[in-house]
């Protein structure tokens, strides 16, 4: 009940209130009130309803109301509220059970009614919306009908107009045709008129001409004459001949000869053309036969196939024809044969091609299905293969990476290498060990070299000092020479010559080189790298951090190179050459760096440097 309460419309309850007020005022009969109550479906739990009940039944009229209710209920078919009377005189007792039953039944009824009402309401709503929808539809359709009707009228109107126009145009056309006819008639009549006139005029003209001719020609006109010094010979050297019947016949003969010649010439041309065409035809025929003959076997195998017989026919035909050397025969006799054979062959070719087409299309369709099946399998196989390959490649990459790391590790010589080494395989370990030992040897060598370098460097420093002194003295001398002394000049010359003799390098400006060379040649035990290094380093470095600086330089140079090459991104050859040059320059320290990593390459690079430096 509580749920139901929440659902009920507050409007309804207020209505019930009004009603209750109204009923209390008008004091209607309890029955009407009851019906009202049923309709309003007000709930007895609410207070005002309670008051309403109190209004219906008071302390005073309990009896009457009970009897009233009993009456009402019995008329509706409920059992009586009173107990069965045991005696007529005794006052009837109110049966509580019956009352409660009644109440319950009433409530059930009430609920049923409410449900029914609800259903009816929803149905009503549904129907109403349906109705609306249908009405809308109806309106729309009506509109459509209207518009289409209008359209139809418009189209009819247009049709009518067009028909009208058409009729007009037809009329115009007819008029034009008439006009054209008329004009043509006029033209024709004018033409006849003109021709007639022309003829008349011409006749007159001819008459006049005739008259003139008579007047001018027949009169012995002295003036019409030819004065000539002497008659000349004919161009052909012959004498003129008399006009006779003979000459006439000769002329005719000649004419016909010319005509005959011309026709003969043309016939020859045509014959030649014909021969050419025949040749082409023969060739085509041969090719056709050769093309069709390999097919012959198959159809023959199939007994029911008709093409085989035809082909054999053709074979016979062609054999006959070739035997008869048909090409020399005149056309009429051969023509039929020829055309027939060609037609036959053509038919065969056509059927053959058609067959081939059919086969191709069939194969195509079948092939598609087959391919579909195969392709799936293939696809799977292929993918498997590819996956395998990928796996292999991955492994390869991994091993390569490991190797790279190894190399790096050996170069680094850090504790990390030992850590890394743990994960390597035994073989690799051994290899690494070997390498390590090699490296150590190299290192030792290097240490030795370094020592010798330092020694050489010290010596160089000394020498440089000496050279500086020498130079100073020389400069002084030269200065003095330039000023006055001659004998000293000659000395200088000697000095120069000595210089130029020692090295074919340029001249005075490159003092350092020959200077450097000398100590080198003196210290025969020391490695040759010295000169190279001193050259690459502008100033003689302190021996202790020699290696560091060198690596630094090498790095620096390589970086330089890397910087430069992208800078010169010109796609042309010059830029690339430039970069290459840079590389070659930079490769020197790099190759020296190779001394660190690869011991075997050390000697080579050294040799290379030696070669490079020695003139």
């Amino acid at each position: 009940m509580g749920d139901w309460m929440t659902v009920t419309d507050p409007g309804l309850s207020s209505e019930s209130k009004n009603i209750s007020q109204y009923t209390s005022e008008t004091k209607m009969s309890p029955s009407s009130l009851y019906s009202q109550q049923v309709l309003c479906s007000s709930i007895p739990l609410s207070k005002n309803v309670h008051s309403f009940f109190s209004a219906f039944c008071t302390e005073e009229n309990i009896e009457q109301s009970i009897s009233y209710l009993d009456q009402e209920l019995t008329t509706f078919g409920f059992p009586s509220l009173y107990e069965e009377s045991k005696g007529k005189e005794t006052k009837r007792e109110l049966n509580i059970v019956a009352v409660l039953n009644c109440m319950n039944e009433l409530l059930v009824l009430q609920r049923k009614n409410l449900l029914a009402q609800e259903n009816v309401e929803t149905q009503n709503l549904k129907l109403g919306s349906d109705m609306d929808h249908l009405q809308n539809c109806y309106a729309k359709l009506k509109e459509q009908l209207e518009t289409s009707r209008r359209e139809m009228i418009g189209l009819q109107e247009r049709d009518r107009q067009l028909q009208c126009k058409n009729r007009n145009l037809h009329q115009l056309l007819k008029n034009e045709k008439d006009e054209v006819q008329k004009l043509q008639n006029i033209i024709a009549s004018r033409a006849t008129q003109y021709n007639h006139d022309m003829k008349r005029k011409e006749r007159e003209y001819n008459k006049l001409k005739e008259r003139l001719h008579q007047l001018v020609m027949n009169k012995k006109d002295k003036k019409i004459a030819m004065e000539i010094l002497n008659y000349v010979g004919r161009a052909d050297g012959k004498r003129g001949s008399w006009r006779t019947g003979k000459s006439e016949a000769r002329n005719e003969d000649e004419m016909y000869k010319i005509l005959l010649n011309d026709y003969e010439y043309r016939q020859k041309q045509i014959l030649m053309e014909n021969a050419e065409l025949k040749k082409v035809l023969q060739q085509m025929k041969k090719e056709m036969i050769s093309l069709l003959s390999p097919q012959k076997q198959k159809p023959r195998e199939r007994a029911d196939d008709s093409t085989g017989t035809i082909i054999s026919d053709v074979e016979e035909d062609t054999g006959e024809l070739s035997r008869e050397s048909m090409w020399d025969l005149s056309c009429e006799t051969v023509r039929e044969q020829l055309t027939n054979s060609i037609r036959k062959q053509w038919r065969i070719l056509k059927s053959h091609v058609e067959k081939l087409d059919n086969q191709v299309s069939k194969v195509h369709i079948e092939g598609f299905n087959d391919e579909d099946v195969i392709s799936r399998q293939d696809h799977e196989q292929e993918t498997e293969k590819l996956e395998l390959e990928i796996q292999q490649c991955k492994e390869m990459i991994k091993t390569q990476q490991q190797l790279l790391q190894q190399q790096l590790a050996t170069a680094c010589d850090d504790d990390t290498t030992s850590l890394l080494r743990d994960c390597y395989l035994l073989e690799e370990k051994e290899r690494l060990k070997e390498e390590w030992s090699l490296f150590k040897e190299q290192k030792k060598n290097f240490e030795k070299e370094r020592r010798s370098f330092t020694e050489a460097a010290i010596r160089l420093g000394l020498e440089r000092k000496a050279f500086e002194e020498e130079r100073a003295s020389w400069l002084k001398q030269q200065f003095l020479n330039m000023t006055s002394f001659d004998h000293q000049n000659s000395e200088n010359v000697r000095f120069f010559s000595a210089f130029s003799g020692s090295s074919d390098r340029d001249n005075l400006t490159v003092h350092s080189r020959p200077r450097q060379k000398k100590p080198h040649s003196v210290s025969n035990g020391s490695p040759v790298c010295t000169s190279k290094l001193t050259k690459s380093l502008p100033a003689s470095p302190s021996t202790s951090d020699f290696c560091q600086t060198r690596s630094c330089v090498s790095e620096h140079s390589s970086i330089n190179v890397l910087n430069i090459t992208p800078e010169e991104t010109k796609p042309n050859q010059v830029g690339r050459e430039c970069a290459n040059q840079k590389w070659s320059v930079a490769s020197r320290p790099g190759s020296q760096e190779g001394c660190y990593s690869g011991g075997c390459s050390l000697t080579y690079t050294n040799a290379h440097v030696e070669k490079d430096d020695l003139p």
Partner: protein
Amino acid sequence: MNFSEVFKLSSHLCKFSPDGKYLASCVQYRLVVRDVNSLQILRLYTCLDQIQHVEWSADSLFILCAMYKRGLVQVWSLEQPEWHCKIDEGSAGLVASCWSPDGRHVLNTTEFHLRITVWSLCTKSVSYIKYPKACQRGISFSRDGRYLALAERRDCKDFVSIFVCSDWQLLRHFDTDTQDLAGIEWAPNGCVLAAWDTCLEYKVLLYSLDGRLLSAYCAYEWSLGVKAVAWSPSSQFLAVGSYDGKVRVLNHVTWKMLTEFGHPATVNDPRIVVYQEAEKSRRRALDRPAHPAPRAAESRYEVASVPVPLQTVKPAADRANPRIGVGVLAFSPDSSFLATRNDNVPNAVWIWDVQKLRLFVVLEQLSPVRAFQWDPQRPRLAICTGSSKVYLWSRAGCVSVQVPGEGDFQVLSLCWHLSGDSLALLSKDHFCLCFLESEEGPHLASGQLGDHT
């Protein structure tokens, strides 16, 4: 390319001898014969009056000079300068004079076309042919010089008479199915005679030497018809230009139309090369403003990109002989090209490829084309437009050449030397020779466009 000096000339009378050795030109009443190579004067003849017509005999031994006003013809011998011959037509008058192919007879047409007098230089005999027709091309000698076809008019009907030239005997005489015969022309092989009707009706008739009608061709009715006709040198094609601006090519086997060459006002096909003459900028003239008489602007050819609209002339519809239709057409000596001019597109020359039967090249000039002629040896076309330039086209390209000299040399007409090595250019009262390199010059071979002065 070299040019000779400029010589005087009157009435456009300048002719190369058929053997190619001499050049005859007329100045008033004087006839000058020069050597072609040295241009030295070989002979000088003086006639009785102003010369109006000059013709070499076929053997290059005699020259005929006609003075129509006087009714006089004078014949000169190149071998014997003292030899002379004078033919007087007297009161009958003279309108045309020509050599017979043997070079020993002179055919004179009297006034009003009363008759043709055949004068012989060998004998005293004189023949008369009556009733010659006054028409566009009424006399035609066959190429071998054996026959003469003559259009005649008797009793308002057209006839053709075929004479044997050796003794002037009438061989055939037949009437033609024409309203008003306009012209006749022998095929180069001398076996077929083409005859065409007046412009009022499109009709081409082909007769055999023996007078049989081989074929009649009519392209359309009710409109102006044939304007010009040309045989190909191989006698294989007959090109018929008509007033509808088309050329119809007939074949020699069936005498049916082989193809139709329309002359569209706009060239759309990208395969066709259109050369347009364009004036060069007159910078040189501006450089020398003190120049008393600035020469005409130089020009050169430019290859125009299609579509090219050509300049057309709207003809006056109410005048006789309207300027429409194909009026000039000529085959190249090897029959591989056909050059045409459509008279309502007067600035253009159309060159058709006969082997492929399609348009090949269009040349559009700055001014109307006066004349064009094929090189007798090569497929090379010379064109003049009345300007001071001569234009040459060959397969390699085309050039515009300024004629040098004082003042303006307006080329009104031209004629090729037999060898194709030189070209006579005629203006109103001067002429000069233009020598071309014997092999095709570098400018032509390379196809360079531009002028060479």
